[in-house]
């Protein structure tokens, strides 16, 4: 499990563990993380910028087509800024990224930033709601499956989660549309309404895509919760607690859940980051204007500037989430505190 390993192995081997009694070390740790975040992000901008330059052809020529006159081409290149040295173009773009100004798209000829801002909100609402629902399903189901892991119900949940993980999300989405929208007519088949425009409609349109995302994410998280709780149940301190006379469930509630929460929180962070782009398939099925479909449309239009801007927003979200998960992880893991 790559991502969790990241957080764990970092905590163990590279960065001095966080110690609440030693605020200096905590600050150092956070500073190191921030520095890494900055370096990673800057390197990523260079990689993405250069990669996008591999697209064959002159953006001005592509935008104007064969019949463009040389003067018009030159004028358009000037307008796009693509006639300047690469390094100048990079720093201009990078400066824009820092100030939140992504420039004007060559293709749609509109400002990219306001559109990205709209789309980020849509994606975050969709993904965060789905993850909340997934957790609400996964925590009780996973715990139940662990506690009853020898019973039929526990095995059934385990099997159900295996299937849930294995079904492509878009298939779940298509089936939901067929059954609940087209068949039963309970909910809209697709589309998006901003919450500020019509909150009731916003909710109605949110339900199916959220269920589609949450069913798969719920299955993934259920597996995590189950194995985390199973693991905690075999811990020494839990046995000790039970030996001291606490009931099995009491011991689990008192000591276990906090420890079981640690890997689950880590995974949730990782999944949110992956889902911001991963939701693109669901966005397509439900015609939701999220970041993923913006990226896909921009790729279809070979709208280079929009593509690289959206990619960097996605990368920033991922890195920030990694950062948060890492800090959160060290804050709540008692073992790491002990080891300091």
């Amino acid at each position, binding site marked *: 499990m790559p991502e969790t390993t990241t957080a764990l192995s970092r905590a163990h081997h590279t960065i001095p563990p966080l110690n609440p009694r030693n605020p200096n070390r905590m600050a150092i740790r956070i500073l190191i993380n921030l520095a890494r975040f900055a370096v990673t992000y800057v390197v990523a901008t260079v990689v993405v910028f250069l990669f996008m330059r591999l697209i064959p*052809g002159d953006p001005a*020529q*592509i*935008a*104007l*087509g*064969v*019949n*463009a*006159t040389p003067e*018009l081409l030159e004028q358009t290149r000037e307008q796009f800024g693509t006639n300047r040295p690469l390094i100048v173009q990079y720093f201009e773009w990078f400066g824009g990224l820092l100030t939140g100004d992504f420039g004007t798209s060559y*293709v*749609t*000829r*509109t400002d990219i930033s306001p559109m990205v801002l709209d789309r980020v909100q849509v994606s975050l609402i969709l993904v965060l709601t789905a993850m*909340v*629902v*997934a957790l*609400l*399903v996964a925590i009780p*189901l996973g715990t139940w499956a662990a506690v009853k892991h020898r019973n039929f119900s526990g095995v059934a949940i385990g099997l*159900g989660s295996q*299937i*849930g993980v294995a*079904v492509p999300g878009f298939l*779940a989405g298509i089936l*939901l*549309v067929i059954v*609940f*929208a*087209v068949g039963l007519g309970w*909910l*809209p*088949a*697709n*589309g998006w309404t901003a919450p500020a425009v*019509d*909150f*009731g*409609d916003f*909710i*109605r349109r*949110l*339900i199916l895509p*959220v*269920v589609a995302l*949450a*069913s798969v994410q*719920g*299955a993934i998280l259920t597996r995590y919760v189950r194995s985390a709780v199973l693991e905690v149940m075999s811990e020494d301190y839990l046995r000790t607690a039970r030996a001291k006379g606490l009931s099995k469930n009491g011991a689990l509630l008192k000591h276990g859940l906090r420890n079981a929460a640690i890997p689950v929180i880590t995974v949730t962070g990782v999944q949110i980051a992956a889902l911001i782009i991963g939701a693109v398939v669901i966005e*397509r*099925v439900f*015609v939701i*204007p999220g970041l993923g*479909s913006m990226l896909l*449309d921009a*790729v*279809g*239009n*070979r709208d280079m500037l929009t593509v690289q801007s959206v990619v960097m927003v996605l990368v920033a979200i991922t890195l920030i989430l990694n950062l948060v998960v890492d800090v959160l992880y060290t804050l709540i893991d008692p073992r790491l505190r002990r080891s300091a």
Partner: protein
Amino acid sequence: MMRRKNAILTTAAIATAAVLGLAGCSAGAGNSAGSDGETPTTATIALTGTPTNLDFTTTAGSAIPQALMSNVYEGLVELDQSGEIQPLLASEWTVSDDRKTYTFTLQEGVTFSNGDEFTADDVKFSFDRVKTDWVSSLKAKMDVVDSVEVVSPTEVAVTLSKPSNAWLFSLATPVGAIFSEDAVDDLANTPVGTGPYAVEAWTPNESLVFDTRDDYWGEAPGVEQVTLKYFADATATTNALQTGDVDAIANLQAPELLSSFESDDQFVVTTGTSSGEVSLSMNNQAAPFDDVRVRQAVLYALDKQAILDTAWNGYGSLVATYAAPTDPYYEDLNDAYPYDPEKAMDLLAEAGQENLDITFTVPTRPYAQAVSEIVVSQLKDVGINATIESAEFPAVWLDQVFTQHDYQMTTVLAVEARDILTVFNDPNYYIGYDNSKIAPIAEEADAADEDGYVDGMKQVAEQIVDDAASGVLFLFPNITVAKADLQGMPENAIIEALDLTNLSWN
């Protein structure tokens, strides 16, 4: 397994409902402005294939004029549903005896949506601008114009360098659109025309909202607001229609989905004709299709009726080249290349091209994906091994195929009306047809009288079919599905405009 899955979904659905229920209830009461009972004043039309921006003078792609012509922009003349030229911004016109000078009398009291008054100056400005500022391949249609002269604010005289039968028709297409001199700075986002609608909101890749103009010079449309909603795939459009999110689907891209609407009297399905040919284009200037025998072999190898039946569920009609039954010079040439795999193989053998490997560049549009698989299968039967290469449409296809001519075989929906000369009378067009035989006939026909024009153009079409310059798989149907009480969706798509000016609710 499905049951298990559904159980999970149900659980999740209940959880969602529980979480969101409170919020949903509190908002439910005030907001749902009832469209039940009273007649709606808005209409939402579903389309597939979004415009990249709103400037068709510098951006290729038929989605832009489809949305804007007739609705936002108007020309001096327009085409009616049967393809006849009718007056629009010009109330009448006279043609000089040498057929080179057209004098148009303009409608009075016409304004642009920015408030500017429409005068003869705008006509001169718009026509001149085609030559100077347009970068679309369509601009060639204005090449024949020698000069545009403002006679009076309501009269304009256009002199052609030679008589042309095609020119007046062109004025009904995007090159004839009239712009206001003060409002061409940001055509990509804020188009300004004399049409009944003005652009109220434009969200790229999502929707285009038109509001009816209060100061429109003609008859106002029957709805106050029209929203064009753009979808990435056809299934989503039919789902949206079925759940009432849209009121009509223009030019449905998935005929397989029609059956559920045809049996439902809440909806009306019309299958009109269009000017769009689904082409099978072959690069005449590159091997192996620089050999006429290989091109002919391909045409013999294809069972076009089977292609139409499988790819488009039998909707549409068969034509041999870029001429539709609505064109005056149409002639049925479908018998030129009957389905004959044996003959195809003979021709290939003669050309020394048995076991031919080719690349088939397929744009990412539903019709193209649908025809490509069956075309590949039929070509395989005669020993042509075609490998499909996807090209995103429009950007990649336009760049790679249309601009750089870097392809062997491709397919595209050529929606432009009366485009046979645009496509074949220009060796630099992407098909690269050697037009030396048709150029003189075409020139003569354009300058001839009406009968001479029709005869000449028929000869042109026959020559093109003889040379197997390129194939046409079928003529695209214009399938419209609308709610039964929405009137005025155009049945046919004869020019690249989706004319929404007649919409009204029963």
